[in-house]
């Protein structure tokens, strides 16, 4: 195997945001259309009564993640191609840290709130 498969910097790398061969307005137009579609669905779902209430936050988060994917692919031109391996690896590490931060904070704080005595009782005991 040649060195082409290893993710190290070479002439075959692409900078994030640079579209491989030909930069086209079409890519941005598709991205804009998809982004507007997903945004529209988000705003619709948030205000409608057609959907079962408790499912709405989950649906909104899923739609937001989908729209971030659309932005990454069509606006930032992050692809799965070999020239993008370094960009994707950095992105994956960033996403890992973001997930650790969010789930860790929420998990710990939820349990703290759950285990803590209600504030008014605590105040009464300190008196």
């Amino acid at each position, binding site marked *: 195997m040649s060195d082409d498969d290893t993710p190290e*910097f*070479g*002439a075959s*790398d*692409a*900078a*994030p*945001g*640079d579209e491989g061969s030909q*930069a*086209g*307005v079409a*890519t*941005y*137009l598709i*991205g*804009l259309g998809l*982004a*507007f579609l997903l*945004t529209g669905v*988000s*705003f619709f*779902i*948030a*205000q409608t009564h057609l959907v079962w*209430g408790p499912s*709405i*936050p989950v649906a*909104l*988060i899923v*739609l*937001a993640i989908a*729209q*971030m994917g659309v*932005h*990454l692919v069509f*606006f*930032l031109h992050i692809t799965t191609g070999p020239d993008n391996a*370094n*960009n994707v690896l*950095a*992105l994956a*590490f*960033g996403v890992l*840290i*973001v997930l650790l*931060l*969010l789930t*860790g*904070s*929420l998990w710990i*704080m939820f349990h703290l709130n759950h285990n803590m005595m209600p504030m008014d009782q605590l105040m009464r005991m300190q008196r």
Partner: protein
Amino acid sequence: MPSKRIIVGYGFWIFLLSDIIMFSAFFASYAVLSDSTAGGPTGKQLFDLTNVGIETICLLLSSFTCGLASIGAQRKSSPMFQTAMAATFVLGAIFVSLEIREFAGLAARGAGPAKSAFLTAFFTLVGCHGLHVTAGLMWLLTMMAQVLAKGYRPDILRRVMCFSLFWHALDIIWVALFSVVYLIGAGQ
């Protein structure tokens, strides 16, 4: 050897990811504190989704015009580049002014950042994004002036590329923001 453009773009990409990690810390604190209204108003009572919708449309369109500007820069076409950058500036400025108006309205209703932990977290998170957009607007004007004065030199084109990465990343953060803060907040 990789070109300097690739190395600069990659370095700026790393910076953007670190910026997104900083925002995720603000998101985490907002999520933790969003119920701590201290008897004050909740998000459901405060958020105006029409305003947020207009802000979102502005920012999405500005991401598109920013993409057109980077195509214009690659083609070294000044009419395309300068017009698209100007459109991006106008849309970004509308976004910032709508956000300032919203913040001023909240403060006037007694729902300033000092009212409750929820509002502190809200103003920190949304305000931090607004400050990023404001800084981006100044960077945008600088890039228009530099292209005008110095032309499409490789170093100027690298700066234009970093600017467009920054602008698109701000749009991604706004997607998380309007979904998590405004839409989920208004539903609860």
